[in-house]
């Protein structure tokens, strides 16, 4: 046994090397190692120049909505332009990009985590911006500031507010892939039946922007429509029927905060939380503009009901505008004729309206042996032409200031009409414990609508539970 070990026993057994033999052996070993390693192109880390040879890159992207396939196709197109740039260095990038459509975020994220642990992660992964917090903490993705600085001309036209969602404790870990807004949609035909003039209907987004039309006006209008039989009972306002980030627009609108900028800790404002719950409690239990037992309604049924014009106000993402056309076969002109969209009105008149965005982002993984090339690939995908193509296909908003002048983007009047919403947008926090925070707030929201607890009880219990779970990672204001 001894002779197979690397311990001192080897020497004791009489294996003796002359200096000459040692040098020859070592030289041979180094030469053999050099020959056996992959081309230098595949060993490139951050900050190095492009290597000669073929470099294989892999990227994972996801919809899950089918029209978002340009998340993959834009990277493929970017690989072509990158290869032209790399010609003089003798480098060629071979990209293997995948796009998952119709799957679940949970499965996709779990697959990435397992791959990252096995050091088999792709070079680039597209996911929600909030994923960067746990993934950066685990060391699955890398900070991009040095590379962004090196190629800053490629990113200069990114809409500045979007960078807020790309940072974790002042370090940038991601590049925006797309974004959206979550408007309040309204039926123009139903408002007309209520006696609203065309000017008043078309002017609603401006009235909301100015704070002249507040949330209380949404509620009173919905109640009036129900009372006059223009919509069925409890069909005045539909929020989304399942878990999602949209709900927090009402928390922000009532003075809520989610993250402390200085410390990066999560924040709860109990008074705003209670008002957030009160909005939903009142909608279901007091004003009866939203159905009882609403959470859990199948998405298909929700969409069929709103596209049939049976609900006066409803919240959904900008991307659903395209989904209603492709999946629910509503002609675009019918949408323009009958459906309007505005920001979520301010909590009180004179206040500021809100929306919430959830940008998807590109991240470069720690497993990547070609991080700089991966970032250059992302940079080449971050152009007005490519992003506009994705925007018009999937109804996601521009992430570049230059997109608004892009001919493709210019042709899409829905995108042009909703782009201003990014000026009013908010984000969910980038924090590793956001999952626990979101779980508690959402469960109490469903409890309030179910009538299990009052808004005050929900707010108090949520604060108490999150204090237990998050300890010093939570600030209560």
């Amino acid at each position, binding site marked *: 046994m001894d002779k197979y070990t690397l311990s001192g026993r080897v020497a004791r057994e009489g294996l003796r090397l002359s200096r000459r033999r040692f040098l020859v052996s070592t030289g041979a070993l180094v030469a053999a190692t050099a020959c056996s390693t992959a081309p230098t192109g595949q060993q490139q880390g951050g900050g190095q120049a492009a290597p000669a040879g073929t470099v294989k890159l892999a990227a994972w992207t996801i919809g899950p909505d089918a029209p978002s396939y340009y998340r993959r196709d834009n990277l493929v197109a970017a690989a072509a332009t990158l290869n032209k740039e790399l010609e003089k260095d003798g480098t060629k990038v071979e990209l293997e990009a995948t796009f998952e459509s119709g799957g679940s975020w949970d499965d996709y994220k779990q697959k990435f985590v397992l791959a990252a642990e096995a050091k088999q992660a792709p070079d680039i992964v597209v996911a929600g911006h909030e994923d960067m*917090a746990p993934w950066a903490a685990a060391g699955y993705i890398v900070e991009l500031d040095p590379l962004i600085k090196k190629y800053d001309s490629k990113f200069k036209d990114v809409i500045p507010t979007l960078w807020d969602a790309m940072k974790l404790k002042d370090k940038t870990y991601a590049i925006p892939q797309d974004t959206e807004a979550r408007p309040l949609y309204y039926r123009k035909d139903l408002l007309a039946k209520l006696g609203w003039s065309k000017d008043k209907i078309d002017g609603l987004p401006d009235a909301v922007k100015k704070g002249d039309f507040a949330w209380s006006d949404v509620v009173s209008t919905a109640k009036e429509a129900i009372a006059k039989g223009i919509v069925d009972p409890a069909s005045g306002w539909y929020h989304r029927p399942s878990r999602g980030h949209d709900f927090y627009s009402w928390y922000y609108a009532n003075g809520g905060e989610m993250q402390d900028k200085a410390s990066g800790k999560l924040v709860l404002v109990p008074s705003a939380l209670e008002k957030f719950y009160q909005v939903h409690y009142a909608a279901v239990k007091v004003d009866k503009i939203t159905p009882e037992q609403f959470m859990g309604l199948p998405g298909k049924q929700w969409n069929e009901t709103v596209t049939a014009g049976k609900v006066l106000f409803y919240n959904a993402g900008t991307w659903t505008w395209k989904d209603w056309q492709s999946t629910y076969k509503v002609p675009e002109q019918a949408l323009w004729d009958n459906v309007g969209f505005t920001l979520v009105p301010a909590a009180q008149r004179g206040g500021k309206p809100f929306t919430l965005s959830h940008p998807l982002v590109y991240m470069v993984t720690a497993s990547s042996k070609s991080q700089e090339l991966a970032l250059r690939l992302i940079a080449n995908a971050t152009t007005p032409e490519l992003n506009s193509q994705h925007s018009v296909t999937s109804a996601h908003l521009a992430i570049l200031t230059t997109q608004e002048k892009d001919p493709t983007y210019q042709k899409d009047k829905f995108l042009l009409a909703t782009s201003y919403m990014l000026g009013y947008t908010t984000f969910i926090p980038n924090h590793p414990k956001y999952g626990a925070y*979101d*779980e508690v707030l959402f469960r109490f929201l469903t409890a309030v609508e179910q009538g299990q607890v009052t808004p005050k009880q929900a707010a108090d219990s949520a604060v108490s539970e999150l204090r237990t779970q998050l300890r010093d990672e939570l600030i209560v204001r």
Partner: protein
Amino acid sequence: MARTGTLQLEREEQAPSWWRTNATAMLFMGPAAILVIVFFFVPVLLTLGMSFTDIATATGLSGWQWIGTANYEQIFRGSFTGLIVRNTVIYVLLVLTFNVLVGLGVALLTVHVRDQVGGFFRAVWLLPRISPSVVYALMWTWAAAPPPFGIINEFVAPFGVAPRFWMNTDPWMFILFLNGFVGASLGMLIFTSAIESIPEDLFRAARVDGANAWQIVRRITVPLIRWPILFVLVYQSMSLLASYEYILLTTNGGPGLYITEVWSLWAFHTALQSYAGNLEIGLGAAMAAILVLVGVAVSAFLLRAFRFNDLVSEPRVEIT
């Protein structure tokens, strides 16, 4: 001394070695024992170990730390713990009672009708068990869909029952039926074979003595199938404590604030499903570890309460 040495030698020669005595048993039980150790004991030990760490997506497999009993403290201080314990107790007791009573009832009924009819009826009862879980759960979800849809709404409308979103308004009823129809089929099969193996003479003698059907069931059938009943009780208690798939596929612990969340689903949600990304594997492992301990305690209690040792002991009188 020489005499003692001789005696010892004789004894050693007479007494076979431990290995010689147990070699056959070890040979037969060895593979199964290895499987049990690798797939049952090792995971339990790993779960216990992980429950004392902060392992999560954010720590990865390399950045975790030992945190002592902090996960257990968080569970016992949490405001949802009491509610989820209560849900779990209700779920296990309710579904277990349904499984055993309905399984026994169907078994008794089907052995007292013509073989073909009984066999057909039992085959129908087996359908939920042989259907894929997801398909079975989806069928229930569609049946209980919100108005204006849902087969149940169609059925009850002629009786003046207002249409509703049954899965949200009566979630426990659906969880009971969903699990019960699957679970009862196992008891039905076991009880049927046990009842059919009771010697016919006993039933004839009872009838000659004037016993009615209820008395026969109570005084003869049930006492003679105590062992299968114990097996079904213990096995299904453990299954139910650890099962959550139908709840996950239908109510997912809702509606509202954990109305149907049971302990095993809570552990799953914490460790393996996070809407916003960070799986808290250490905390989920602590929940699973508590479940294992409760499972062992419940099994021990049931085995003691039903005098398991008496049931499996050699009969005192052997009739040849």
